C-alpha cells in the first residue's frame, strides 16, 4: 500500500513537473493534484459517458477524473480538433505551407496509411510540408501533422519519411499535447468552472481559450518521456503499415551527425531528448515482431520520384 502511494506520488510529480516547466506560472492546488491521478495515461478508449458521471459526483477528485476521461473519449474529438486548429494555425503563421501539390499529396498518402493503423483512424488526418529550413515536424491535436522542408530534404527513403510521420501520429494518438493543454486549463480556471464551461461549450469558446496554450506548448516542447513514447509507438505504427521498423534509427543518426550546433536543428534539440539518447532508448524495448519488421520496404525508393 505504501509503495502504491509512492508510485502515485511519482506519477503526479512527473506530470506536474512537465507542465510546471511548460507553464512556469501555474499554481496547482493540492486537491487537484490528487484528482489528476484518475488520468489513465495510455487508455484512449474510454467508453463511458464521463461528463454525466462527473456531473453527479460531488467529490472534486472524481469530477476531474471524469473530465479527463471525456478528453480521451470520442466525444472529446471535436474539442480536440478545435484546439488543434488553433495550434496548427499558429505554426502555419510562422511557416507557410508548401505549394508543391505533388509532394503534399505524397505526404498525405504515406501519412494516412500509417494513421489508419493507429487507435484513432477516424480523426481528420492531414499532412503538409511547411516552408522553413529548420529541421522539425509538428503534431497538432486532432491530427494535423506539419513537416518542415528542412527535415524532408534530409530524408533518403519512404521508410525514413514513414518513421518521422509515425512519430508525430503517435503524439496525436496518445494525445500528448491535448492532455497537457486540457490539464493546464483546468488548473487555471478551477475544476468547477472548467466543467461548467465544457458542458455548455457549444461555440467552442473554451477550445479557443486553449489555443494559446497549445502554441506555447509546441514552442517549448513536451517532456522527455513523451518523446520516447512517441518514438516507441511510432516505430510500431510504421511497421504495421509495412515500413522498416528501424528507419527511425537512420533519421536520428542523421540528426546526431548534424549536431546541436547546426542552426537548423536548434529548436528540435531544445524540445527533444538528444538523438543519441533516443536511439539508445529505441533499441532497449523491441519485440520479436518489431525486429522481424526491420527490413527495407518495397516502397523505400518512391521518395526519389515523389513530387516530380
Amino acid at each position: 500500500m505504501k509503495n502504491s502511494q509512492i508510485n502515485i506520488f511519482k506519477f503526479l510529480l512527473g506530470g506536474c513537473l512537465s507542465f510546471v516547466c511548460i507553464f512556469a506560472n501555474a499554481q496547482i492546488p493540492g486537491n487537484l493534484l490528487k484528482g489528476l491521478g484518475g488520468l489513465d495515461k495510455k487508455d484512449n478508449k474510454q467508453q463511458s459517458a464521463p461528463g454525466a458521471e462527473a456531473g453527479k459526483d460531488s467529490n472534486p477528485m472524481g469530477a476531474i477524473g471524469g473530465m479527463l476521461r471525456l478528453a480521451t473519449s470520442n466525444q472529446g474529438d471535436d474539442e480536440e480538433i478545435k484546439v488543434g486548429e488553433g495550434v496548427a494555425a499558429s505554426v502555419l503563421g510562422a511557416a507557410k505551407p508548401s505549394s508543391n501539390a505533388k509532394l503534399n499529396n505524397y505526404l498525405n498518402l504515406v501519412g494516412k496509411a500509417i494513421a489508419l493503423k493507429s487507435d484513432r483512424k477516424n480523426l481528420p488526418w492531414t499532412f503538409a510540408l511547411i516552408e522553413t529550413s529548420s529541421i522539425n515536424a509538428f503534431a497538432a491535436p486532432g491530427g494535423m501533422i506539419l513537416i518542415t522542408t528542412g527535415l524532408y530534404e534530409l530524408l533518403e527513403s519512404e521508410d525514413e519519411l514513414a518513421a518521422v510521420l509515425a512519430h508525430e501520429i503517435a503524439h496525436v494518438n496518445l494525445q500528448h499535447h491535448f492532455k497537457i493543454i486540457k490539464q493546464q486549463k483546468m488548473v487555471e480556471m478551477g475544476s468547477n468552472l472548467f466543467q461548467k464551461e465544457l458542458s455548455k461549450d457549444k461555440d467552442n469558446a473554451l477550445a479557443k481559450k486553449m489555443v494559446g496554450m497549445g502554441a506555447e506548448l509546441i514552442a517549448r516542447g513536451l517532456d522527455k518521456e513523451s518523446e520516447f513514447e512517441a518514438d516507441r509507438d511510432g516505430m510500431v505504427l510504421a511497421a504495421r503499415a509495412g515500413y522498416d521498423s528501424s528507419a527511425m534509427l537512420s533519421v536520428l543518426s542523421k540528426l546526431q551527425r548534424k549536431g546541436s550546433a547546426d542552426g537548423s536543428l536548434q529548436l528540435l534539440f531544445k524540445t527533444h531528448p538528444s538523438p543519441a539518447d533516443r536511439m539508445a532508448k529505441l533499441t532497449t524495448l523491441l519485440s520479436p515482431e518489431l525486429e522481424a519488421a526491420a527490413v527495407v520496404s518495397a516502397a523505400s525508393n518512391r521518395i526519389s520520384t515523389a513530387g516530380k
Partner: protein
Amino acid sequence: MTHKLIFLATALIALASQPALAQTATFKIADVVRAEPSDSAATVANVALNSKAEVLERKGFWVKVKTAQATGWTKLTAVSIDQSSGGGAGGMSVLAGLASGRAGSGNIVSSAGTRGLSENDLKGSKPDLQAYEFVKTLAVKETDAISFAQAGGLQPREIQFIKPPTPPETKNQN
C-alpha cells in the same frame, strides 16, 4: 541530467575536430555473435558480459561487430554503443545503417530564401487560419491511401504496441 548534457556537449565539441575513429560498443549481456544478422544463423563466437567490440555497420536492429574472438552480427539490444566513440558527432553514426553517405534525398523542395523557425517565431506567431483551411484540403481518402500502399508493395503487419515494464503497484492508481 545537467551533468549528462554538459558531458554530451563536451563530447560533441571534442569530437568535432577529430578524424573519424572506430565506433565501439560494450556487451550489456553475455551473448553470441552470428555469421548473419538472423537468429537462425550459425554462432561464430560467444561473448562475455562487458566485452568490448568495434561496430562496423548496422542492418535493421543488428550490428556487425568485431570482437576479440570473431567478426559477426549481434543484436543492437545486446550492446550499448559507446557515446564517446568516433564516427561523427557523439558516436552512433554507424546506426545510420548501410548509409549511402549522402546527406539527404537530394530533393531540394524549399523555396529560395526560406528561413529558420525559432521558439519565439512560434510563440509570437499570428495564427494563419487561411493556411489552415488550405492544409485541410490536402487530406486524402482512406481508400486512396490504402491503394497507394498496395501499389508500393507494402505488406501490413499485425504488431502490438510495446508496453514498457511498469511497477506492479500502478494498477492501484484508479
